């Protein structure tokens, strides 16, 4: 009986070990990656793409860094490769459009960008695409009023686009300050949207120059577009530095004069006395030697 018990225990533990091992090998499954492409074009010049890679860990999206993504224009064939990018620690990678796809770019008025990730030992292969119609933006100003225009390439000419949401703001640190209370404007049939500038005396540079920005964000058709213009509508900003003042919280070479004099005076007075007293010892010593 005892023997049997032992055998059973042994068997059970063996099975447990095996199943445990199986469980372990199953947990090494590959995770899936979400890839998103964004299209940017600033000041109607060279467009660029930004690829974002994320994965879900415990229900939360985390950036995936260090994966290689191949970017293609419209289709996978000769002359359509935009480039191969590797995501950084924020899961981001960016690429411009190389001249090698010039022919393909000219062949159509809308384009589909393809992102292909071939998979690696941690993540499964995946793909993403984004369809964009290349567009341009114009910005013009007239007596504290700003007009932004959105144009799309149709056949061979740029034609205005109606019904595009855009923002008009003043360039500031980390974000653009809307020029008035209206958060977004929509273009009319002439492709234009106008805004009154109501940020009087907003600080500009030393000459009062500020940078106005009109931008289309995350548009399904056109992606991210922006255009900017410098105008002298701001307040003249005069920088007054208080950095070199002598204060209690200044650096050591910027201590208040009164403090330096007071402490210096006290230290000198005491230490001169002490040095004299030490010299006095030597005077006593000298007398002692002479008395010998």
């Amino acid at each position, binding site marked *: 009986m005892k023997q049997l018990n032992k055998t059973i225990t042994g068997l059970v533990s063996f099975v447990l070990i095996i199943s445990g091992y199986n469980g372990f090998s199953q947990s090494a499954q590959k995770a899936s990656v979400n890839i998103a492409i964004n299209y940017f074009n600033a000041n109607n010049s060279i467009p660029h793409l930004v690829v974002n890679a994320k994965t879900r860990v415990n229900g939360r999206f985390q950036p995936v860094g260090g994966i290689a993504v191949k970017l293609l224009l419209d289709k996978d064939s000769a002359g359509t490769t935009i480039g191969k990018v590797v995501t950084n620690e924020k899961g981001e990678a960016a690429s411009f459009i190389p001249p090698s796809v010039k022919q393909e770019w000219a062949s159509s008025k809308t384009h589909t960008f393809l992102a292909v990730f071939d998979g690696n030992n941690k993540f499964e292969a995946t793909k993403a695409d984004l369809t964009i119609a290349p567009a341009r933006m114009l910005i013009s100003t007239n007596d504290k009023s700003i007009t932004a225009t959105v144009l799309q390439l149709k056949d061979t000419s740029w034609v205005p686009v109606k019904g595009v949401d855009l923002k008009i703001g003043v360039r*500031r640190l980390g974000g653009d300050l809307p020029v008035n209370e209206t958060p977004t404007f929509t273009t009319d049939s002439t492709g234009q949207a106008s805004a009154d500038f109501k940020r009087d005396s907003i600080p500009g540079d030393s000459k009062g120059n500020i940078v106005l920005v009109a931008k289309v964000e995350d548009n399904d058709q056109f992606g991210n577009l922006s255009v900017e213009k410098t105008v002298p509508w701001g307040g003249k900003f005069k920088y007054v530095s208080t950095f070199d003042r002598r204060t209690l919280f200044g650096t050591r070479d910027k201590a208040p004069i009164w403090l330096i004099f007071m402490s210096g005076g006290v230290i000198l007075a005491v230490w001169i006395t002490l040095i004299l007293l030490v010299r006095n010892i030597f005077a006593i010593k000298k007398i002692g030697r002479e008395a010998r």
Partner: protein
Amino acid sequence: METENNSRRDFLLAGLAAAGLVAGCSPKKSPFEEAAAAEGAKPSGKTVKLLSVDGEVVEVDEAFLKPVPHMPPVSNEEARVGIPGKKFVMVIDLSRCKNLKKCQEACNHAHELNPGHNWIKVDPMQGAEHTAPYWEPTTCMHCDEPPCVKVCPVDATFKRQDGIVLIDSDRCIGCRFCMAACPYSTRVFNWGEPDIPAEIKSQPYSAETSIPQKKGTVGKCDFCADMTRMGMLPHCVSACPNGTFFFGDMNEDSVTNGAETFRFSELIRDKAGYRLMEDLGTKPSVYYLPPANRNFPFESGLENDKTQNS
């Protein structure tokens, strides 16, 4: 959050690309090129050919092509002086905080902080028995008359011209006088050897990133001075899903949380912004908007509090 990062990238590219284009076509200097140069990018002389939106091939200087300019870490002398012409300011909207602590998480991650060494703390506050409780995130106040800097015996902590108070961990002797002097209890001490990856630990210390933290020295919120130097927002600002934190330059009179941008003076005026412990005369750079018209009830933050402060 996304838009914030991207719009920033836009800006640089706008300037940089335009600069490159102009340089390629005509010798006239564009204001953008100046802007690009001010951001620290210098033309490398090497150009690359790229496709414009019109389908034209244009030549652009390589140095202007990085989506985010790679900034070499600034020297200790530069880090001590700060950026001229700036005066960084933060606004924390108490009506939007529900103790999610994403700010803290992002901050701890960005600065390689160990658990418990929170530079951002979120405290439940209640002035008196019958007043309303609310969640109050605190960072370093970056006071304009900082009591911690006053008492530092060795210039290890210092006030910069852009308003940021930083710590030089290569200088700090660990006397902790600054911790006693700070009425906001914002400073933390590295009592033991910080547990950080070896490759980060071996980096030279930078006062602007506050990395790596060192045993026997003081650490605290640095307003992400490295990020602001690049024109980006501090990590806590971008991390908050509720847009509680606003950051900006007082000299531009504007603050943003990435998604919304307000004129600083108007925001403070309209929402009756205030600073903590004004009576002490420390003149903080962090402003608070009172928890009126809240987005969340106070109780919604309690659950998170229990799990994190047990």
